[in-house]
C-alpha cells in the first residue's frame, strides 16, 4: 500500500562503481532497486482498494488494517501484502513464583465461554505475580496452550458428562494440598459454584463468590441483596461471575501436564443421578432451548400443539397470535414479550417484524417457514422454507412420529 519515494540522487550514488579515472555507473536497474532510500510514500488508491470490504449494495471500508482475504487479493501484486497474523510466540514459565488454579467446568465435555473467561482471569492474576496458570478440568481434546494454561491437571474425562461433584471436589482438595496454589478460581455457574463451595468448605476457607470485577490487587462482588459492593484484595478462593472478564486473545502457553493427585475412592453420597424428562411447555420461554413459534400464518392450532409435543419444543408465538388468544401472553416472543436465548427457533408463518426480531436476537439457529419469500424472518433464517405452514406442519408431525424414517 505504500511505495518507496524515489530519491534520484541516492540512486545515482548507489550505482557508482568507479570514480577514477572517470566515474562509472551500473546500468542494471535490479542492482539498485533495493538500495533506494527515502521516506515511504503513501498510495491512497491502493490503500482504499485494500480497505474495501464490499462495493454492493453499498460501499464499505475498513481502515483498521484487518481486511478480509478478498480485499487482499484485489490489491496489486507486490503492494499492500499484509502479513498473515503470526502465531503468538510460545511462553514458557519454567520456575513460577506461585501457581494459580483454574477449576474449569467443561459442561457436557466442551469448554464453555465462561471457562475461557476464567482462564483469562487466572492469567491476569498469574501475570501480576509471575505465576503459572494451572487448568484443572476433566480431560479433553482442547488445545490448553492456546487457551492460556501453563500447566494442566487432567481429571478423568468421564467426569465431564456424569454428575460427580464429590469426586471432583476431593480431587481438587488433594491437588490443592499437594501444590498449594496462591489462588483457586472457579466459574460461578451452577456446577462450578457448587464445586467452589464444596472445596472451600473442605479446605476450611472462605469463598469470595461471584466476582464481578477483577484486577490483580482488588476483587469486587455484589452483596447485601444486590445493594452493596464488597471489595478486598483477591482472597485464596474466588468464583468469577459470567462475563466479568474478557476472554484472552491469541496466546500460546506450554500446557505441561502434571500428574493428577491420588484420591481415595470414597463411596459418593449422591447416587443414581439421572436427567428427568421435562414438559417443554412448563419451561419458561427465556430459558427454553428449542422453541416452536407460530405467527399469523398459522391457522391449524391443533396440529401446532401436537407438533410442539412431538418435537419436544416449547411453544411460543408472535404478538398477533397472543393478542388473538391462541397462546397465553407469557408465550409471546419479542420486544414487548420475552427475549429468548434458545439454541434453535422454528418459526411458522412469522413475518419478522423488528419488534419480533429483537426477541430472537440471541437465538443461535433459526428455521423459518413462510409463504412470502421477502419476509424479514426469511432473511434472518439459517434454513428458510417458502411453503404453506398448514401443509408443512402435518408432514413434519408425521415424520417426527415415525422418528425420521419416512
Amino acid at each position, binding site marked *: 500500500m505504500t511505495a518507496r519515494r524515489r530519491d534520484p540522487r541516492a540512486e545515482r550514488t548507489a550505482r557508482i562503481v568507479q570514480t577514477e579515472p572517470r566515474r562509472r555507473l551500473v546500468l542494471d536497474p535490479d542492482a539498485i532497486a533495493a538500495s533506494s532510500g527515502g521516506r515511504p510514500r503513501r498510495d491512497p488508491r491502493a490503500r482504499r482498494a485494500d480497505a474495501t470490504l464490499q462495493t454492493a449494495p453499498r460501499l464499505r471500508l475498513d481502515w483498521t488494517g484487518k481486511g478480509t482475504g478478498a480485499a487482499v487479493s484485489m490489491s496489486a501484486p507486490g503492494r499492500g501484502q499484509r502479513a498473515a497474523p503470526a502465531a503468538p510466540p510460545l511462553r514458557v514459565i519454567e520456575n513460577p513464583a506461585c501457581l494459580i488454579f483454574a477449576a474449569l467446568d467443561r459442561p457436557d465435555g466442551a469448554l464453555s465461554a465462561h471457562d475461557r473467561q476464567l482462564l483469562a482471569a487466572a492469567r491476569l492474576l498469574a501475570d501480576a505475580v509471575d505465576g503459572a496458570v494451572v487448568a484443572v478440568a476433566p480431560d479433553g481434546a482442547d488445545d490448553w496452550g492456546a487457551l492460556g494454561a501453563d500447566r494442566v491437571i487432567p481429571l478423568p474425562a468421564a467426569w465431564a458428562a456424569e454428575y460427580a461433584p464429590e469426586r471432583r471436589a476431593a480431587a481438587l482438595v488433594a491437588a490443592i494440598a499437594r501444590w498449594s496454589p496462591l489462588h483457586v478460581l472457579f466459574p460461578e455457574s451452577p456446577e462450578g459454584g457448587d464445586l467452589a463451595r464444596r472445596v*472451600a468448605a473442605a479446605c476450611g476457607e472462605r469463598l469470595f463468590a461471584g466476582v464481578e470485577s477483577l484486577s490483580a490487587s482488588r476483587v469486587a462482588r455484589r452483596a447485601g441483596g444486590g*445493594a452493596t459492593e464488597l471489595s478486598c484484595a483477591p482472597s485464596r478462593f474466588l468464583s468469577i461471575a459470567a462475563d466479568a472478564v474478557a476472554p484472552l486473545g491469541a496466546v500460546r502457553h506450554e500446557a505441561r501436564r502434571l500428574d493428577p493427585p491420588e484420591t481415595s475412592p470414597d463411596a459418593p453420597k449422591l447416587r443414581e443421578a439421572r436427567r428427568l424428562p421435562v414438559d417443554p411447555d412448563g419451561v419458561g420461554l427465556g430459558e427454553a432451548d428449542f422453541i416452536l413459534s407460530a405467527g399469523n400464518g398459522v391457522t391449524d392450532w391443533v396440529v401446532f400443539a401436537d407438533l410442539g409435543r412431538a418435537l419436544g419444543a416449547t411453544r411460543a408465538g408472535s404478538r398477533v397470535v397472543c393478542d388473538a388468544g391462541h397462546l397465553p401472553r407469557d408465550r409471546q416472543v419479542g420486544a414487548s414479550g420475552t427475549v429468548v436465548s434458545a439454541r434453535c427457533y422454528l418459526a411458522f408463518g412469522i413475518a419478522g417484524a423488528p419488534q419480533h426480531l429483537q426477541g430472537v436476537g440471541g437465538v443461535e439457529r433459526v428455521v423459518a417457514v413462510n409463504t412470502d419469500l421477502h419476509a424479514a424472518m426469511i432473511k*434472518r433464517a439459517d434454513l428458510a422454507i417458502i411453503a404453506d405452514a398448514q401443509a408443512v406442519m402435518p408432514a413434519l408431525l408425521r415424520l417426527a412420529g415415525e422418528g425420521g424414517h419416512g
Partner: protein
Amino acid sequence: MVDVAILVSVGRHPASGQARRAPSDARALELAFGLPPGRRDALHAGDPTNPALRDYLGMGLERLTVLAMAEGRDPTDALAARLRGLSPGIILTGNQAEGGEDSGMLPYVVAQALGLAIVPDVVAIALDAEGRTAEVVQALARGQRRALRVELPFVATVHPAAPAARPSAFGPARRGRIEVVPVDAPPDAFLTACAARPWRDRPKRLSVGAAGGGTGGALERLRAATEAKAGQGRVLVEPSPDEAARAIWDYLQEQGMQPR
C-alpha cells in the same frame, strides 16, 4: 416421619430495601411443610426482634428459634453446634441469602462441620417408605431437572424454581413463638476486611469487538449494533410438504435438537 431443620435468614426487598422473608428460605420452609410430619425446627441466627422473622411464623410455623447475636458476627459455628444437638434428618436452607454476605457458603460450611452430604439447588424431595433415603430433584439450567438418591441425614439448598412459598398470614404470625437463645459468636474477620460501598452498575462488557475477542475493532461493534443478524440462508422455494418436512427434520438433527 422425618425431623427437619430449616435455616432461615432475613431478606431485603430489592426495590425498597425493606427487611422481608428471604424468598428462597421461604421456599425451603414450604418444602419442609410438604414432607411427612415429624419435628420441624426453624433456626435463625441474628437479631430476634427483627419483624421480618414473623413472616416465617405466618406461614404456619409455631416456633422459631433465634440464636441471638449481634450484627456482623459469624453465625456458622453457632448454627452448626445447635444442629448437632438437634440431629435432624434433613437440613433445608436457601441457596443464597439476600441482604448479608450472600455467598451461599453457609450450608456448605454447616454440612462440612456436621459431616453430611449436601445437595444443591433442590426443588423436590420424596422420602422412601422407611425414611432412610430420599429421592431429590435438582433444578439445572434451561429448565432441566435431575433426580438423584441420597441417604439421610443430608443438607439441601433450595432453588428459586422450587414451588412458591405460601403467603404469610397475620394471625399465625402474631401467635407464633420466637424462642431466643443468646449465643456467643466470633466477629466475622473476613467480612470486616472487605470494603463495602453502594453498588453501582458497570457498563456491560461487549462481546463483539472487545479487546482480545480475536476479530475486533469499532467496525465490528458498529456492524453488530446496526445490522440485523442474518442467517446463512439456505432457502427452499416451494418444496413439496414432505421435502420441506424432511429438510427441517434433518436440520434439527444436525443441530442436535432431535434424537437420531
